[in-house]
């Protein structure tokens, strides 16, 4: 689906990280693989350290912490908010929704639309798309897009395929109308036929959690996990991304009516350094225009990757100037998308460390 949005802009980004940093070297003994083999992945994949929440922290806690920062520093006003969109695959509960938890915590009006969207790594673009559409009916107001995941709770600590790369994080992106904003071009695609490449088998109505689903087993490839844990077919996801994303980027650039050379930055989802290098080459983008440093510093923060990569790498610069950015993300579903927009002159673009 191709979408063109007018008079919309991102006006602020706040990223919230857990307090605890966990180092890859300290986790190597958790895995059944030979130490030398695992250590080799450190430089190739960019595994260095990642951020993980405390045992009793839920996804909404990070969101609420960030929102408190925004309110205390008067970066947003509760009266201006018309919608809360929360994109997560690790909600606090199935019911009630994380967005309603946030609304309740801050005493927001009952007129504020609360919407949870179950999306993973492509969740930033999906959330933005919904926010832009909601603003059409609420001129003068702001929509808050929360991307939050605490995947450390859903990935086995003995799964070398997935655990080293996950990172817990929440981001809050403020979206509003702006008559002077340049058009935003977006293409979002879905391929449900490959959905099982990223799956948490148990915990839903198909296979409710039980003592059996919680039992840890050797998966046959040296990784130990239960049916309650996330399973990723890394080879299938890699091939999916390399096949689908390059033509998607080319289509979106053409749709935007620009040339590839006009793009200042490629701000992509952050699966791992190897995949991003290969993707940059396949797209024909200079590697130094694509940020690849989020996994090594924070882990892969799922749907929060793009705003975290923007804040970490561009930060203050995004409060001062407009930069033409190509955003892209891909993940569970499987889902993939790209967006071309002028990102900049934000009211704020920050990262804070929470006490979670």
């Amino acid at each position: 689906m191709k979408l063109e949005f007018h008079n919309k802009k991102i006006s602020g980004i706040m990223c919230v990280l857990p307090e605890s940093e966990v180092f890859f070297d300290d986790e190597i003994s958790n895995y059944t693989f030979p130490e030398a083999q695992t250590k080799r992945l450190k430089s190739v994949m960019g595994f260095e350290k990642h951020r993980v929440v405390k045992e009793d922290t839920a996804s909404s806690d990070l969101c609420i912490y960030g929102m408190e920062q925004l309110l205390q520093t008067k970066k947003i006003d509760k009266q201006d908010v018309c919608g809360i969109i929360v994109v997560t695959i690790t909600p606090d509960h199935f019911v009630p929704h994380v967005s309603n938890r946030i609304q309740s915590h801050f005493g927001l009006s009952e007129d504020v639309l609360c919407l949870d969207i179950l999306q993973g790594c492509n969740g930033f673009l999906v959330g933005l798309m919904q926010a832009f559409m909601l603003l059409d009916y609420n001129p003068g107001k702001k929509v808050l897009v929360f991307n939050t995941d605490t995947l450390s709770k859903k990935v086995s600590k003995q799964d070398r395929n997935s655990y080293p790369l996950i990172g817990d994080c929440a981001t809050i992106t403020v979206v509003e109308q702006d008559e002077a904003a340049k058009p935003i071009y977006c293409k979002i695609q879905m391929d449900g036929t490959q959905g099982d490449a990223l799956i948490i088998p148990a915990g839903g109505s198909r296979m409710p959690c039980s003592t059996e689903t919680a039992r840890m087993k050797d998966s046959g490839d040296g990784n130990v996990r239960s049916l309650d844990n996330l399973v990723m077919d890394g080879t299938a996801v890699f091939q999916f991304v390399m096949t689908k994303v390059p033509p998607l980027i080319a289509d979106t650039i053409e749709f935007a009516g620009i040339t590839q050379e006009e793009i200042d930055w490629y701000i992509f989802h952050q699966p791992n350094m190897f995949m991003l290098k290969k993707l940059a080459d396949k797209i024909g983008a200079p590697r130094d225009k694509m940020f690849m440093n989020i996994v090594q510093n924070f882990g892969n923060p799922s749907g929060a990757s793009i705003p975290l990569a923007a804040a970490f790498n561009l930060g203050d610069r995004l409060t001062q100037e407009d930069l033409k950015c190509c955003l892209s993300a891909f993940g569970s579903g499987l889902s993939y998308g790209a967006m071309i927009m002028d990102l900049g002159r934000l009211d704020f673009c920050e990262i804070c460390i929470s006490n979670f």
Partner: protein
Amino acid sequence: MMDMIMNILQEIRPECDFASSNDFMNDGLLDSFDMVSLVTELEEKYSILIDPLDMVPEYFSSVSAIASLVRKSGADVQN
């Protein structure tokens, strides 16, 4: 080139007996993460860029299959 590839394989998985295997992937000698390590080493040693779409098990099943991948990726080698 065959010797060089075998040396790289032994560096990546020193505990494995590659000489006795007919299919490194099916026999469990290499997994997808080893493929990534191997590609990185091959790119560095032969100054090539391997197309990610070629990162499929067929090109990693044997030393000769890996050699054909290296040649396909533009390595300037005679044997």
